[in-house]
């Protein structure tokens, strides 16, 4: 598998779109998962997924293989999703006094915890996803989201509290 991946990356770097398609096919679920959980909106998650892969394509020539492709793509995906999350935050603050509105994702086919995550308030959800699922540290999250590290920790605890109470009531 690893060999196969390396070949695809090598080819895609040179401009082979078929090879890039293989990479896309391999990782789209992973990328979409990050985007959907962070943004809690299918349409935006789809846009974010496409955007992440477009950026990956653009930056591939600069990918030197010092980390694994998977890690590299993961970083691009997280940051792309956070870009859109931050844009949403500004729109909410300027246009609307209520910062906690989020798009509603109807997902009865998903497991309880998945649904609960999508229900979290915007900032708590972003912090939770980045820390608990995507493995970022609070200082990294603080920089990515433009908040204080203390806020990141507080939001994480708040998210856990909410999730613990929600998954029980269903």
């Amino acid at each position: 598998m690893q060999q196969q991946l390396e070949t695809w990356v090598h080819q895609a770097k040179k401009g082979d779109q078929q090879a890039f398609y293989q990479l896309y096919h391999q990782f789209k679920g992973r990328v979409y998962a990050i985007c959907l959980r962070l943004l809690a909106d299918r349409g935006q998650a789809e846009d974010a997924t496409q955007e992440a892969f477009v950026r990956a394509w653009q930056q591939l020539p600069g990918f030197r293989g010092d980390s694994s492709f998977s890690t590299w793509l993961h970083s691009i995906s997280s940051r792309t999703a956070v870009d859109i999350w931050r844009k949403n935050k500004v729109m909410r603050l300027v246009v609307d006094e209520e910062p906690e509105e989020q798009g509603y994702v109807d997902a009865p086919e998903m497991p309880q915890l998945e649904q609960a995550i999508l229900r979290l308030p915007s900032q708590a959800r972003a912090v939770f996803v980045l820390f608990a699922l995507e493995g970022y540290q609070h200082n990294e999250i603080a920089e990515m989201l433009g908040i204080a590290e203390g806020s990141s920790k507080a939001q994480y605890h708040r998210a856990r509290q909410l999730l613990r109470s929600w998954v029980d009531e269903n």
Partner: protein
Amino acid sequence: MTPSIKLTVLMLALLQAPAWAAGEAIDQSRDVTATEKIEIENMRGEVRIIAVKANKFSVKGTLDEKAEGYDLVSENGVTRFQVKMPRTLYGGWGSDKNEGSDLTIEVPFGSEVKFSGVNANVSATGIEGGTRLNTVNGAVRAEKLKGDIALETVNGQIDSRDNNGRLHLTTVNGEINDQGSAGSLELESVNGEISVASAATDVEMSVVNGEGRLELTGTERLEFSSVNGEISAAVKNSKKPRISASSVSGASRLSLDADVSARFELEASAGGDIGNSLTADKASRDKYGPRRHLEFTTGSGDGNIEISTVSGDIELKKH
């Protein structure tokens, strides 16, 4: 009656009621629902709105001298009372404080009341279904209200006493005094002092040029911001508060319970001093430049306290 007494009575009557100064008298009363939605519009003068036990709406007093009558309509649980003023091209009818209506209005306890005026002072007591008092030049007083409460003026003072609910107090030029409130409290003033003694659990305050003084008990979340004003806040009986403060050049002074359990992050980026007598932690200074920074945790770090300023001072202490 003897002729001399008749004359005296007549003279007294003339002295007491100079007819040219007072407007038309009004004394109206009607039954309304217990949770009536009531809208009152009176451009100038004094209006007192009092909640009573009865399911009635009544208005007594005198109308504005320049008024052209009034409208009073009740239907489908909504009552509208409006003092009708002529439209004039001359930018108002004058803001002589002695001119205007003088009204006392009674409403049911459970009603929801909206008042709107321009050169008007308004006061409200006891309304429990929600209240919105809005004036441009004038003072707003509110006491013992419940529910969603919005008090707004542009030039004038806001006095809020023993109100309980979701309070939103706004003025541009004027003071805000809030005593004894509970629930959640949002205060905004541009030029003017804000002075609060409250048990609200959620408090947000913003002032541009003006001081803010907050004495809070049991408050769990506090957010305050100022541009050039100094803000001092004492938060008592709150072990895990979430406090977020931001100022540009004003000083921020915060006093907390000695056994508060929280993560602290304080930052002054351009010359402000950070003083801490809550714990022994001292601010560190950037090697180059005027930035000062202090981060520490007390207890189990349950709460969260962030204060940032540009050139103001930050002072943190215990009560």
